[in-house]
């Protein structure tokens, strides 16, 4: 079976996110003065072939921890997405 996942990687809270800050600073000039806490991260879509969802998810968690994110500066979340075959 194939399982589709989304991995969301974001900079840890407390770490300055210059990209997010720049976007946040631009929003008031476009009329949105009511926005705060803008953070920009990464969105990684992938499909894993495995014998079952738990095994597929465990592999994605492992690749997110070892490779897709850096635990010093980033947090990640693994979401299962629609579209498993």
């Amino acid at each position, binding site marked *: 079976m194939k399982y589709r996942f989304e991995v969301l990687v974001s*900079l840890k809270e407390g770490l300055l996110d*210059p*990209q997010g800050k720049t976007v946040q600073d631009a929003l008031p000039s476009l009329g949105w003065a009511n926005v705060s806490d803008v953070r920009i991260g990464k969105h990684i879509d992938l499909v894993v072939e495995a014998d079952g969802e738990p095994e597929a998810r465990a592999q994605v968690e492992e690749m997110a921890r070892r490779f897709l994110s850096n635990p010093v*500066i980033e947090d990640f979340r693994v979401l299962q997405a629609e579209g498993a075959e």
Partner: protein
Amino acid sequence: MRPRVAVITFPGSLDDRDALRAVALMGGEPISVWHAAHDLQGADAVILPGGFSYGDYLRTGAIARFAPVMAAVRTFAESGGPVLGVCNGFQILCEAGMLPGALIRNRGLSFVCRWVNVRVEGTNEVLQIPIKHGEGRFVASEEQLARIESEGRVAFRYCSPDGTLDEAFNPNGASHGIAGLWNESRSVLGLMPHPEHAVDADLGPTGGHHVFQWLLTAAQERVPV
């Protein structure tokens, strides 16, 4: 016998040629080693050069750390062999967990390319060495920073020309003004400034000598007598 210094070339390395040339200029025997190699050709020291290995995709150094040659580099470092990581090389060492912390986007977002002054920690010596990076801002957790400081593992800090520490002279927002740092056993050194671009007096300041002298002295100790 001159110590043999391996300079690793990853796809996207840029400063490997300058590093090879600097090694020769400073009295070592440079050896070029490809990232797909499984051994270091009997090298007495290793340099991970600057550049944009694997296009800096995902994170700087994140893919290079899994290159085949890195297993040999890790084993070499664990045996006390001197390893120098410059700029992208520093980023690779952090990603590999061979140095603590990480290097993130510069404060102010700009790529910075200019000469800076760094203070050799534990001395009053100030070196002039160029930097050129977009992601050179050293960060680590509070616990890691406290440990790095208490163990005296900061090698270089950004400073004024006379060695004064001040945020005004910090080009990228690095925590504690850290420009370079040692591992626990002081066999691995990573730094953002480029010593290989500062070794030839005909071309400018020679702040890089200090770094290569450490590397070649440590390498010489491993040369069989």
